[in-house]
């Protein structure tokens, strides 16, 4: 056998090892790598566990502090209410002293006997001193709330300072702690997930140690991939910011809430001229709060509310259209921003729907109103009326009526007590809207609402069926009274002197059946005056002329009916048959 043959023979019997690719590991190398990976992952896991414990503890602490703030807010609220009630009682007692003092002074002037007049003067002087002393016992009867010239007490401002701002601030602190707890809780959850995933990678590395070839490489690669992804996940969780809300921003927010409350009370009472100042102060507070905390969703929503209040007051009051438009645009922008920051509750959508409606953007109003209704179906009447108005603008009378009837049907299903405020607010709002933003069909909706309200209140159903009765125009009369206070003469007039405490009312009618429910309602400057409401089951003849008296609920010495514009309405079996207006100077 020659060398060539020997070489060939050697080649045939000796196995040829394939050339090792660069960076390929030997079995020993794999073992060392896997051991290092396992140890590294174990260490990484302990670090993540420590981070998880830290986050969990901080979340628990923030959650505990938040609940403590909630309890404190309740405490502040109750303390404020008790203080408010004390002050209201003091105010009532002071008012009683004032009426006594005024009476003594009047009697002193009317006395024919000098001795009696002097006695009355002395009584008035005693009462004056008692009043002075009484004011020293009350914060509401002292500056800055009380004007000693006019005897006017700013009960609203007192309410803001004691009832609104303190609990609002404490609740904001609670909300801040809740946000902090949520952020730490989210971190903790991510760490838990990471630990679980690292356990998977450990398992894969352990398994890889028992495998050979491509499977070994595959399992190791997957494990390394998991560990790398976990590292990125942990880093992102660790670096995620935890909200740190400056206390000053919360204080500014609470102040703004107080001013908005004040503006809201004024707006409800029809004092439109005074609303913009308070709304502006509120807007400024919220703007400063947002500057300190740009993602302050609650402040955006509240600023939107303040802007909407101001725009509404301007629209229903002075009508400066430029300011109204810019106010509404700002309000809409704020509500949209609040929703984008997560404030997607029924309040935001409902207020946004109203803002869109006043801005005459009816399709958007419909969409926002639908969102609000979907979130709060138990507020069916309130939100349903809002949707009906939006549909009136966007799609016409038919769609609006359909939604209105659905809302009224919902109101019939539960006691009227929970909807009376919604009815009154809607009726008053419609009266203002018809002046400022009239739409075809709005007057019909207002009429339907009024009839449904009367019918639900006194007949238990929103459905009104015409009785066939007719009522002529209402005539208002100045009354002549005898010594016993009985009416002995009536003189038709549409205007009455200041201090008038009763107004005559008469009307011709036909076809009112015996026992029919007849309701007389009276409004002052658009606000329903429930003490002046008269309800009766009809007992006079079915046709004729009826005479009634609109009077202050109780005769007293010092105040008659308030000056202003009054509207009277007559309903028969819930159907509005006649209305008229008179003025008191």
């Amino acid at each position, binding site marked *: 056998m020659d060398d060539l043959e020997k070489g060939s023979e050697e080649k045939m019997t000796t196995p040829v090892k394939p050339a090792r690719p660069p960076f390929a590991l030997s079995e020993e190398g794999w073992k060392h790598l896997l051991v290092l990976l396992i140890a590294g992952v174990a260490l990484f896991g302990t670090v993540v566990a420590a981070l998880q414990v830290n986050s969990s503890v901080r979340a628990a602490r923030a959650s505990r502090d938040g609940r403590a703030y909630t309890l404190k807010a309740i405490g502040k609220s109750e303390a404020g209410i008790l203080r408010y009630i004390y002050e209201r009682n003091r105010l009532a007692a002071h008012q009683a002293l004032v009426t006594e003092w005024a009476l003594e002074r009047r009697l002193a002037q009317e006395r024919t006997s000098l001795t009696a007049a002097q006695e009355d003067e002395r009584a008035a002087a005693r009462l004056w001193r008692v009043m002075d002393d009484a004011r020293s016992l009350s914060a509401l009867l002292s500056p800055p709330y009380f004007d000693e010239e006019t005897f006017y007490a700013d009960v609203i401002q007192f309410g803001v300072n004691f009832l609104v701002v303190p609990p609002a601030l404490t609740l904001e602190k609670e909300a801040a702690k*809740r946000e902090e707890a949520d952020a730490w809780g989210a971190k903790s959850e991510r760490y838990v997930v990471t630990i679980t995933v690292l356990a*998977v990678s450990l398992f894969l590395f352990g*398994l890889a140690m028992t495998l050979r070839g491509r499977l070994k490489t595959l399992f190791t690669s997957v494990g390394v991939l998991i560990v790398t992804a976990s590292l990125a996940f942990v880093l992102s969780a660790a670096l995620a910011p935890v909200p740190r809300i400056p206390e000053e921003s919360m204080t500014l927010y609470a102040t703004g809430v107080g001013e908005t409350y004040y503006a809201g009370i004024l707006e409800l009472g029809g004092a439109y001229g005074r609303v913009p100042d308070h709304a502006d102060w509120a807007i400024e507070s919220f703007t400063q709060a947002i500057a300190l905390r740009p993602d302050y969703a609650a402040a955006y929503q509240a600023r939107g509310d303040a802007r909407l209040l101001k725009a509404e007051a301007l629209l229903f009051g002075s009508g400066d259209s430029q300011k109204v438009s810019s106010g509404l645009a700002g309000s809409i922008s704020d509500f949209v921003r609040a929703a984008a920051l997560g404030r997607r509750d029924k309040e935001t959508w409902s207020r946004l729907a109203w803002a869109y409606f006043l801005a005459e953007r009816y399709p958007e109003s419909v969409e926002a109103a639908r969102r609000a209704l979907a979130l709060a179906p*138990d507020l069916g009447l309130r939100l349903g009326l809002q949707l009906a108005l939006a549909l009136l603008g966007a799609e016409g009378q038919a769609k609006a009526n359909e939604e209105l009837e659905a809302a009224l049907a919902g109101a019939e299903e539960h006691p009227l007590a929970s909807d009376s405020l919604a009815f009154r607010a809607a009726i008053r709002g419609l009266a203002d809207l018809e002046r400022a933003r009239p739409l075809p069909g709005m007057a019909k909706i207002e009429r339907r609402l009024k009839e449904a309200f009367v019918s639900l209140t006194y007949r238990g159903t929103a459905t009104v069926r015409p009785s066939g009765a007719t009522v002529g125009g209402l005539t208002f009369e100045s009354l002549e009274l005898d010594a016993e206070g009985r009416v002995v003469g009536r003189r038709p007039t549409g205007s009455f002197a200041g201090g008038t405490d009763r107004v005559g009312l008469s009307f011709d009618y036909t076809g009112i059946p015996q026992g029919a429910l007849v309701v007389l309602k009276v409004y002052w400057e658009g606000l329903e005056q429930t003490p002046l409401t008269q309800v009766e089951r009809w007992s006079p003849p079915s046709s004729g002329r009826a005479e009634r008296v609109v009077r202050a609920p109780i005769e007293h010495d010092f105040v008659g009916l308030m000056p202003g514009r009054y509207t009277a309405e007559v309903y028969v079996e819930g159907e509005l048959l006649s209305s008229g207006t008179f003025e008191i100077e």
Partner: protein
Amino acid sequence: METEDKTPHDRFRTAVSILIATVTVVGAAAAWRTSVANGQAGSANSKGLHAALQGANAAITVSTYLSMNLGFFADYREHLEKANLLEADAAKETDGARRASLREEAVRERNLAATARSYVDQDYLAIDPETGLEIFDGNRYWEAQWAEASAGQDLDEASFFAQANHTRTKARALTGVTVGLGTVLFLLTASTVAASRARYVLAGIAVPIFLGAVAAVAALEVLL
């Protein structure tokens, strides 16, 4: 030249190894979803507690204002009754001076009645149809004020707690699935070291449990 002939044993080990990796990934996913569910339940609990506290606050506030109204109404009725009685006595009085004095006193009481009445929320004054007397409808006041408070904030914790309970049920179910997946892992790992026939039995038990666990996770995600 070396040839690699895969034996059935090698193919089995490969299949089981891949299955084990799959099970660990599914297990990690189930653990993640459990953590998410627990987090959601915690958040719902927190919101529910907040609503319960708001509800308690609203109840105390409304009842306090109701008491205030009832107090002023009681004062009004008392002064009005005194005024009516004084006027009735004045009408029967024959002595002129005494009559004038009674009428004066009646005017005072009527003024006090008017003052007290002005502090009562007029919307809730009504006439009792049976007695014809004026009443303060406290029930209607409560209903209306509670509805007004509800319009602006959540006062009922029930829906949040129900959501939390529902999510915790899901979390508990997912935890049960995770235990099942752990069992599958054990069976598959045991199959890699077991004798010939036993390894197929173990793997045969593990696979249906795994498939059931996957179906359970999918069902829980869709249904709960």
